[in-house]
């Protein structure tokens, strides 16, 4: 089948209608992004932390692509984040190119690493994948540490001076340019990810997550899809790392450390997996919690984060969210289910024969 005929098929009939319905922007989503946009003017003193939130949000969206949609658990996603950060830092330091070129370079190198290591995660199930991804990140961290001539080793990459974006927008000490830049990049990549997850490709990923053996038997090329999404997610993580390097103008081994992989997993635990916004919402909650707890109890903020994590997991966040959303919908006027996802947690169970 030619690409043209395949495309015309995909665009036809129910398939196209399904994709259009799934891809439609809903009011809460529009409000979310309007709020993010408004924060540029409404929270001028908080641009530094908002920039971090945007970057962590993008990083979490990247992890959600593989964890929430394809079911690949990872404890080493910081490998791609770190590689992207170092790539962007080195491009800026040695070539003084536009930050956007740094982003492309970071995406390319991270995607290359993702593609190579994707063959490792194809094998085995959850525990194997956890160990393999953790191992890859540890190896990369040690390589970065040992290659001090290139990365600066434990001292970090010094002398990174970031040129103005498109030659016009200089980074400022208040983080305003940084936040607008990170938010714009995060938004663009989010829109692309959103389009991908509602496409037949995205649906097939969820089928693979549900049952890889069965997915293969109904014609889904499981390995090829997993390699593709892992590579894509690596590119996203690389861009997130590059944003951090560019907006802070510094890269250290911290970008590739284990805690980054753990943090982004925690962000998804807080926000939820499999709907992309979990990464963004989780990033907001996580960073604000971290900021707030660190200010009121500097020595014990990690204790509280840990406690919240335990409560969230034990209380079953999805169930809590479902109850809250059901209560909200019960109060909201208009047809039920109009704004929510078709496969939301409160779709009416089928009745009838069993």
């Amino acid at each position, binding site marked *: 089948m030619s690409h043209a005929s395949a495309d015309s098929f995909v665009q036809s009939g129910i398939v196209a209608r*399904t994709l259009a319905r799934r891809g439609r922007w809903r009011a809460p989503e529009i409000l979310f992004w309007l709020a993010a946009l408004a924060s540029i003017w409404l929270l001028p003193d908080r641009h530094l932390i908002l920039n971090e939130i945007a970057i962590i949000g993008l990083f979490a969206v990247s992890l959600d692509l593989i964890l929430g949609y394809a079911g690949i658990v990872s404890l080493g996603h910081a490998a791609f984040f770190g590689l992207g950060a170092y790539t962007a830092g080195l491009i800026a330091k040695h070539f003084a190119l536009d930050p956007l070129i740094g982003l492309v370079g970071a995406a390319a190198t991270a995607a290359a690493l993702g593609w190579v290591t994707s063959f490792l995660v194809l094998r085995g199930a959850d525990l194997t994948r956890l160990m393999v991804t953790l191992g890859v990140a540890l190896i990369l961290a040690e390589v970065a540490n040992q290659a001090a001539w290139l990365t600066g080793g434990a001292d970090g990459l010094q002398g990174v001076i970031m040129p103005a974006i498109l030659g016009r927008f200089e980074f400022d000490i208040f983080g305003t340019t940084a936040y607008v830049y990170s938010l714009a990049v995060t938004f663009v990549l989010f829109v692309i990810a959103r389009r991908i997850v509602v496409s037949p490709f995205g*649906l097939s990923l969820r089928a693979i997550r549900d049952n890889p053996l*069965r997915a293969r*038997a*109904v*014609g889904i090329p499981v390995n090829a899809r997993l390699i593709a999404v892992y590579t894509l997610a690596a590119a996203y993580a690389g861009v997130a790392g590059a944003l951090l390097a560019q907006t802070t103008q510094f890269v250290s081994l911290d970008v590739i450390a284990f805690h980054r992989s753990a943090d982004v997993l925690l962000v998804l635990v807080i926000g939820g997996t499999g709907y992309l916004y979990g990464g963004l919402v989780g990033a907001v909650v996580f960073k604000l919690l971290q900021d707030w707890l660190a200010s009121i109890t500097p020595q014990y903020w990690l204790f509280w984060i840990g406690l919240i994590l335990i409560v969230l997991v034990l209380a079953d966040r999805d169930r809590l969210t479902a109850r809250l959303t059901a209560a909200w919908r019960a109060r909201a006027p208009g047809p039920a289910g109009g704004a929510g996802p078709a496969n939301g947690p409160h779709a009416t169970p089928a*009745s*009838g024969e069993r």
Partner: protein
Amino acid sequence: MADLLRLDRVAAGYGEALVISGIDLTLGEGRALAVLGRNGTGKTTLLNTIVGVTRHRGGRIALGGQDITGLRPDRRAHAGIGWVPQERNIFKSLTVEENLTAVARPGAWTVERVYGLFPRLKERCRNLGNQLSGGEQQMLAVGRALVLNPRLLLLDEPTEGLAPIIIEELLAALKRIIRDEGMAAIVVEQHAQKILGVTDDAVILDRGAIVHAAPSRTLIDDPAPLEQHLGVTARKSPGRAAAH
């Protein structure tokens, strides 16, 4: 009539266990075959072997003249094998419509046509896979196989565990697919009387080998082989009389 499917001395199993061996089978274009047998005789393994999810131990499988013995299951599906597994295995986090669109391929069978065949699915199009009844899940499993636009449909005990009224609905749909649309099919079924009216030919499996092969009509007219190998009597059904 040209052979659509041909199995030559096929042997397969799981791990070290050999379940079927020496299977010779041919199926012509547009023909339907019933695979009968008691529990544990290798019926499901035979289908699984054609699909490619067992450990191949010998022999050759060809579809439309193409050797598919070494192909992965997804390549076999693309080559034209649509599978309705015994456990149905609907993708539970996808809606009915997404289950269909996730695997749909170009061809005569579209999602719309599947809805025409199973109107219940259209009513449930936005329900998740795990929110369907057993009958609806089976219809979705058949529909999911159809939108692949296969040349050969494999159905593993499609009526198992369903209410009689749903079985009738499903069998009527299968008759339409097989008899009216002329789709080749292999139907595994423990209950011969349910399926012989739908198929052209039948084989009986015992201990992983074919022990009897005959036209379905012959088995209905003379059920002695069924009594011998399955220990059951195939009753003549009014539906079958109409079919012939």
